[in-house]
């Protein structure tokens, strides 16, 4: 018979809590808490930070393939509960995308909100993005609907436990995100054209 474990001393408890917190943060779930429902007053920025970005990151991370010298590992949910979690992530994305389609959703929490990557020259500001949306609201709604459709495809794939379908839906989610970001958020500079190999090699660093 063994004695019942004594309560952990405070330092060990504190350390355990800190480690748990850190692991959660490293998984991207602490800094940006995931919200299943969208507050009616949520801005585009808040919807991205609390719903769309964490849900899409987790959905993308749920499936993939890793190759090393030790072999190939196919990552996908391994249980019904795991697939249900992915389906719930897709639901969160659908909810976020539908919120973006509401008329008059503000861009940032305030008119002066600094958005992500604001320090990168050319990145569009909240007032600029708001003006672009006001100029053609239907265009922005089309982008949000593209995300909604891709997220619905992801939900269908998750419900069918279809890893390949989830990868395809994940690509569609990425395409919807990128198209909207390129239209409203990213700097409006032409893509950097890659020089031919000889010219590139002449100017490139060679670590």
């Amino acid at each position, binding site marked *: 018979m063994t004695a019942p474990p004594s309560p952990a001393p405070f330092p060990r408890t504190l350390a355990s809590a800190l480690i748990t917190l850190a692991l959660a*943060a490293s*998984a991207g779930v602490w800094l940006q808490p995931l919200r299943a429902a969208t507050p009616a007053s949520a801005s585009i920025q808040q919807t991205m930070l609390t719903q769309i*970005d964490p849900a899409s990151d987790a959905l*993308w991370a749920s499936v993939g393939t890793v190759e090393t010298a030790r072999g190939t590992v196919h990552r996908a949910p391994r249980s019904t509960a795991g697939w249900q979690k992915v389906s719930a992530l897709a639901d969160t994305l659908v909810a976020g995308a539908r919120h973006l389609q509401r008329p008059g959703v503000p861009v940032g929490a305030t008119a002066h909100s600094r958005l992500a990557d604001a320090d990168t020259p050319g990145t569009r500001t909240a007032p600029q993005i708001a003006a672009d949306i006001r100029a053609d609201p239907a265009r922005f709604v089309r982008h949000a609907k593209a995300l909604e459709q891709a997220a619905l495809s992801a939900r269908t794939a998750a419900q069918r436990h279809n890893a390949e379908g989830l990868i395809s839906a994940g690509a569609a989610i990425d395409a919807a995100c990128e198209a909207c970001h390129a239209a409203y958020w990213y*700097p409006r500079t032409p*893509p950097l054209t890659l020089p031919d190999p000889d010219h590139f090699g002449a100017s490139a660093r060679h670590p």
Partner: protein
Amino acid sequence: MKLAHLMALPLALLTVAPALAHHSFSAEFDGKKPVRLVGKISKIEWTNPHSYFYLEVAGRDGKTATWACESGGPGALSRRGWKKGDVKIGDTLIVDGYLAKDGAHLIDARRLKLPDGRQIYGGTPGDGGPGDNANG
């Protein structure tokens, strides 16, 4: 492990926590710092929204460093003409790309030269690969 070390761990882990998945090229990479890597592939991650392959690159000081090469997701690579088996663990590749702004051993991989001499492209707009219509 001392408590001070345990308390430092969360901060250390925070520094390696994944960044938001989406950034413009210019937010993450420096277009004025082209890099050509030559090394053997040690790991490949086929994931959305980006795939990564890792090269073991011998530096001029003789030390080997691991570099992460970011490319498009599996679907984007497929549209650029990648086929299963084009890149294999242990292959020596020449990779052209642009250095991460934060100085990490990370590049936006634009063009890969395979051991058989073929070139394939990383899926970033402007890489010039099949299906790239970034410049009209």
